[in-house]
């Protein structure tokens, strides 16, 4: 077999920088995949060795997830071949890929809401007892070690629909681990995890590595790439660019490979004298904790909100927006107390909430980019049976240009966009409403470095124009660099509000952990 591989045509420009004598677990050659109107993958090569952590890097829409979906048996490639342990394989479904030893944590959560954590972990491979019947108890017992491994402290009998996003992400990881596979694909597994959980995950990955497992790791967070990977493969516009050993490269070089130009400044932040209080929470309590929260956000100010997964950040602001029932205490907008809170009224008061889960909360996947970007600001161009098409076009073109959304036309269906580009569409929708108070819940989830910088720039400009911004994030670097003040949440309450000169990683984490 090895013989055969070495005899492959020499024009295949694979991995010439990498000399690795370890056996090859996965090899993909000349993979091509087209969707109607989009060439997602052009002649892609990939090699993964035993015990290797291969980073996969590229802008939003570069084709990373598509490539992994080919490896995971979800898409069939138009041409090209896939080898596992040197043997060519043709997966006709997820099951075949699983059986060949490939586990997959998808970019978008894919769990069963009405099954328990244990059932989700063993779905498709349910544990049977001697009578050939599925055994609930046995599954729960077997699930526990995996949950402990990922550090998720929930009962395996709990239904998944009652977990927070971050917790669900951990379940996904536990599920992938339980497959005992030889290859694990992690497609942006940390996009809704915070430092602590990320570190935990990294330890797991390092352990798996020593056991000879191969790991493909996709992330837009450069620090993670440098922390974890042995080699990095870079893709651009569906094409293979290069593979470099991590130890021999720099962040700037990788970014250059990814976007084809230099990006100098990530964090745009000019500081302004804050104005009047725009949003005030007074003894506002919600969620299972019911602990009172006090917070003031002023005009021209960016207030970061940091916390571990399940700390209640999303829950707090969703309740404020009236997107969740409950919540006691006072909410003031521009000094006026808001009586009944519902999303329609809050929007009329000038608030906008960019939700964290783009797929379920943000997007109309079967509508096009135009529909999605304009849906929250219809009043600007429709009145009395007249649709001002010029204005409508302006809105969408504006979003596409300022956020650099990669689409072939405004009529592209949002469901076919890459994850990062979908995230930009959600942002575009809310920016079009010209909010006075902007609440961003993980706005850069899954967004590539270049685009992140652009988003930071936009947020900065908005603040300069007088918008009050709440910036919820699980990425410490991000909130530390972008915020004027930082609220650290823990179990439903604000553990501390730090001003910029008090920002310090250890202090913040101490408050977050309690």
């Amino acid at each position, binding site marked *: 077999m090895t013989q055969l591989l070495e005899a492959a045509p020499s024009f295949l420009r694979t991995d010439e920088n990498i000399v690795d004598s370890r056996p090859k677990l996965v090899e993909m050659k000349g993979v091509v995949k087209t969707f109607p109107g989009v060439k997602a993958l052009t002649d892609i090569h990939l090699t993964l060795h035993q015990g290797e952590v291969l980073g996969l890097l590229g802008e939003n829409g570069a084709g990373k997830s598509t490539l992994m979906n080919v490896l995971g048996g979800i898409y069939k490639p138009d041409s090209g071949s896939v080898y596992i342990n040197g043997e060519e394989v043709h997966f006709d479904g997820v099951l075949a890929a699983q059986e060949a030893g490939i586990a997959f944590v998808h970019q978008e959560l894919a769990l069963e809401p009405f099954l328990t954590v244990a059932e989700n972990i063993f779905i498709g491979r349910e544990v049977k007892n001697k009578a050939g019947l599925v055994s609930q108890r046995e599954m729960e017992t077997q699930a526990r070690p995996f949950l402990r491994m990922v550090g998720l402290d929930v009962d395996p009998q709990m239904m998944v629909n009652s977990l927070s996003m971050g917790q669900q992400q951990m379940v996904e990881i536990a599920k992938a681990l339980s497959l005992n596979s030889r290859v694990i694909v992690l497609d942006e597994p940390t996009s809704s995890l915070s430092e602590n959980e990320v570190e935990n995950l990294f330890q797991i990955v390092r352990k798996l590595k020593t056991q000879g497992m191969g790991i493909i790791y996709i992330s837009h967070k450069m620090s993670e790439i440098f922390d974890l990977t042995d080699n990095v493969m870079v893709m651009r516009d569906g094409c293979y660019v290069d593979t470099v050993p991590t130890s021999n490269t720099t962040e700037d070089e990788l970014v250059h490979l990814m976007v084809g130009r230099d990006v100098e400044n990530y964090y745009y932040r000019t500081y302004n004298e804050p104005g009047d209080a725009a949003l005030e929470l007074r003894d506002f309590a919600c969620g299972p904790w019911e602990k009172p929260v006090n917070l003031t956000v002023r005009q021209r100010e960016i207030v970061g909100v940091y916390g571990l997964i399940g700390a209640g950040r999303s829950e707090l602001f969703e309740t404020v927006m009236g997107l969740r029932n409950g919540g006691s205490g006072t909410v003031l907008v521009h000094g006026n107390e808001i009586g009944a809170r519902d999303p329609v009224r809050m929007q009329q008061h000038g608030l906008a909430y960019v939700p964290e889960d783009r797929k379920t909360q*943000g*997007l*109309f996947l*079967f509508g096009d980019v135009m529909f999605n970007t304009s849906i*929250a600001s219809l009043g600007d161009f429709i009145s009395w*049976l007249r649709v001002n098409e010029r204005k409508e076009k302006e809105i969408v073109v504006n979003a*596409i240009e300022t956020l*650099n959304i990669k689409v072939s036309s*405004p009529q592209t269906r949002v469901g076919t966009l890459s994850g990062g580009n979908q995230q930009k569409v959600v942002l575009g929708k809310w920016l079009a409403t010209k909010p006075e108070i902007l609440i961003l819940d993980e706005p850069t989830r899954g967004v590539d470095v270049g685009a992140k910088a652009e988003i930071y720039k936009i947020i900065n400009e908005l603040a300069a124009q007088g918008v009050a911004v709440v910036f919820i994030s699980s990425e410490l670097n991000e909130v530390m660099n972008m915020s004027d003040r930082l609220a650290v949440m823990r179990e439903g309450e604000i553990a501390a509000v730090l001003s910029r000169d008090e920002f310090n990683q250890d202090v913040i984490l101490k408050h977050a952990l309690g």
Partner: protein
Amino acid sequence: MKNGIDLLDRVGEVPVAGSVSKFIKQNLGILIGFATLLVFLSIFADNFLSWANMVNLMRSVSTNAILAIGVMLSIMLAGIDLTCGALVALSGVVAVLSLNNFGLPLPLAIVTGVIIGVVVGLLNGLVIAYTGIHPFVVTLAMQSICRGAAYLAAGGQPVTARNTAFTALGNGYLGPIPLPVVYMIVLFFLLYLLLNKTRLGRHIYALGGNPTAAKYSGINVVKVKVFVWAVSGLLSAFAGVVLASRMSSGQPTAGVGYETDAIAAAVIGGTSMYGGVGRAGGVFIGVLIIGMISNGLNLLHVNSFWQYVIKGIIIIVAVYFDMRKNKGNVRTGF
């Protein structure tokens, strides 16, 4: 970012727009099916294309057409309205009774019949919006209630309208065109405007496409739902009053199973049961197809038992065709 101009050029192909070519493009699958049926019947069924038969066909589809508009809207919200058939009976009975027994003047009697529909529709909408019970269940239960109410109001017997002017509503003409056909055309035009030229229309698409995202987008979810079911109730009731006028009697047994044909027309016309997808023109053609099947098969002297079989097959084939041609609109899942 120099491709702004590029983009603006390509913005032209708005999904919601009016011209004939767009209509054809959007409804290609169903139009092919329609044309096939039309050509087939023109050749094999004598008299199919005669003016008399065309008038007869259009008048006979008008009830289903009016119901299909409301049902289509409910389906676009990934819901359904099963109350419409029973409401046809109830509103007809109520209109005739208020004419006969309460001596209301004709226009008022007609309005009373229609208001019953609005009330029932509002109830449906409010229960659906506030309790979270699936529309299928709510409107099914309401169907049972309305049917019972129709029987009770009418005392189990048809009630004959004593005011002969009442019959004009359903049997009159505007020039050479029967009034029910006029109603149908006007209502379809209004549907077109609603879906393409109003905010509410966009909100319907949005709410049907993703209810959670609609809520997060600041759409008044309750309002949209209540509107849709209330309109559907109104239309069913209007259709029921017109039907009662055509028969000059209110029949508590009228409209049994009408919801089925209305759903079939909406779905053949490209409305997706998963919500968020639907076109006014498509539904109109769907209505015509459903009408042509039974008119055509009768003209072709096909035994009524075979008609059941053929109708079932045509429905599946037509929906399949429409889906193939509009692949983009098809959700995964089923």
